[in-house]
């Protein structure tokens, strides 16, 4: 098998299963097969899915720098899939909040969306990711032409919104949001460096 076929028929299906694992673990933990969700299961589910959403945004953003640094061009074959998994985790994180945490209570949802800045930030990221996910097909890319790239550049903003959303939500100890802020700075910083170099060549 050549590399492209290997990626398509072996590595991609394997990666899909791997990417589904955190969500699967939430389900098996809920039934106490693999572990437990603890005293506050709703909070635990929400936190776990949220952190995985942020991790997948970071992983998707790491594809291009990794490809450039390693020279493995086949890495970009995983980019869309990883982006869609980021969207998947953001979406189920949001649905957990909407259904399990807020209990679909519309007045509380509307109040939180407008009055709680960290929820507004998270929701903005969700809206942008929805636009990106629905235009991620080859057909949509063709149809949108140049505007496609502009729209999909919003992933950088989504990264910032995600880290900010996490940062504002913690009560006091900002160690973990800080780690994500550093990772994001490196991923975005590399791009800025490369762009600067290109312009000054």
């Amino acid at each position, binding site marked *: 098998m050549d590399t492209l076929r290997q990626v398509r028929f072996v590595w991609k299906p394997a990666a899909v299963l791997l990417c589904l694992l955190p969500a699967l673990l939430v389900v098996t933990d809920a039934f106490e097969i693999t572990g437990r969700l*603890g*005293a506050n*299961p*709703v909070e635990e589910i929400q936190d776990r899915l949220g952190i995985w959403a942020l991790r997948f945004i970071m992983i998707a953003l790491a594809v291009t720098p990794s490809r450039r640094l390693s020279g493995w061009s086949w890495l970009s074959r995983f980019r869309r899939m990883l982006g869609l998994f980021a969207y998947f985790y953001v979406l189920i994180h949001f649905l957990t909040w909407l259904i399990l*945490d807020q209990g679909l209570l519309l007045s509380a949802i509307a109040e939180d969306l407008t009055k709680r800045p960290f929820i507004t930030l998270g929701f903005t990221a969700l809206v942008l990711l929805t636009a990106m996910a629905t235009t991620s097909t080859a057909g949509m890319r063709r149809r949108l032409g140049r505007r496609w790239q502009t729209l999909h550049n919003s992933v950088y903003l989504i990264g910032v919104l995600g880290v900010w959303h996490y940062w504002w939500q913690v009560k*006091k100890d900002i160690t973990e949001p800080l780690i994500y802020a550093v990772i994001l700075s490196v991923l975005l910083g590399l791009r800025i460096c490369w762009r600067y170099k290109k312009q000054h060549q």
Partner: protein
Amino acid sequence: MQHFPPEPGLHDCVAGGKPLLIKKPVAIRPSEITSKDNYLSRRGFLKAGAIAGGALLTAPVPSAVVPTETHATLKNVGKSRFSTIETPNSYEDITTYNNYYEFGTDKADPVRYAKEFKPHPWSITVAGHAGKTGTFHLDDFIRPFDLEERIYRMRCVEAWSMVIPWVGFSLAAVVRHLQPTSKARYIAFETLHDPARMIGQRSRSLDWPYREGLTIAEATNPLPILAVGLYGEVLPNQNGAPIRLVVPWKYGFKGIKGIVRMRFVEKMPATSWAMAARKEYGFYANVNPEVDHPRWSQARERHIGSGLFASKVPTKMFNGYGEQVAHLYDGLDLRKNF
């Protein structure tokens, strides 16, 4: 670091030349007539007392004794009319999901990192405008009071709640016993500061030691207790052993744990969460569904243990204890004094 004397006898706890905390109700001191093992149990205590002279049986007997072993059962625990009839949360929920930043900032940290903590020997320093000041061995500090079970609702500022069967004694009785002077308008409490024993204090997650406070009027209300037990047993380390404050109409962070200092002061003392984020946490911290935390709503709460699909329940003013405490805040703007 303060040095705590190892297991001093009844007479050793004298500080600054001041006499012992305990007012002797009988001529014969318990320590003179019973061995240490014996006075750990009230039955043994009473039997020995009866043998020694019978006087003990008629005089009011100071009773609170708290053993040092984890999971040891507390004896002579009375019931209280202030207990809620709501079903308490499971022992597991209460002891595995709570905030105690001295042992880490995650709610699963305290149970993990407080396991090796040894809350004995322990002493409490009483200072400031009070008749009885000094450093007291915990056993001596506790002994004059009666243990009671108080099943209280607990509402965390993070918008979750539990029902917890504490065992403790009335803070009002303690305050009366310590005889504050007219200058004492507030009580300031402090937690042990010992990063060698409390791993969370090695990081600057809060400005250590943890500090809390109450007005004298709040402290002498019948509701607040100093808790030394949970579910009829000795208080587990992760919940604030050996002694902690419980103020059921306030957010949980007012319930300072591992107390080593009480000061009777004139001015409103600085408190840890207000020091950490002045705009988010105030001195009073009364449970109030109408005053939101700047970053989240306080209108509703998630009741721990109600399951994955239960909806949040409305939060009650003063956590449902308004009848007993609302009068304390007459004329006070609770929006400003949150």
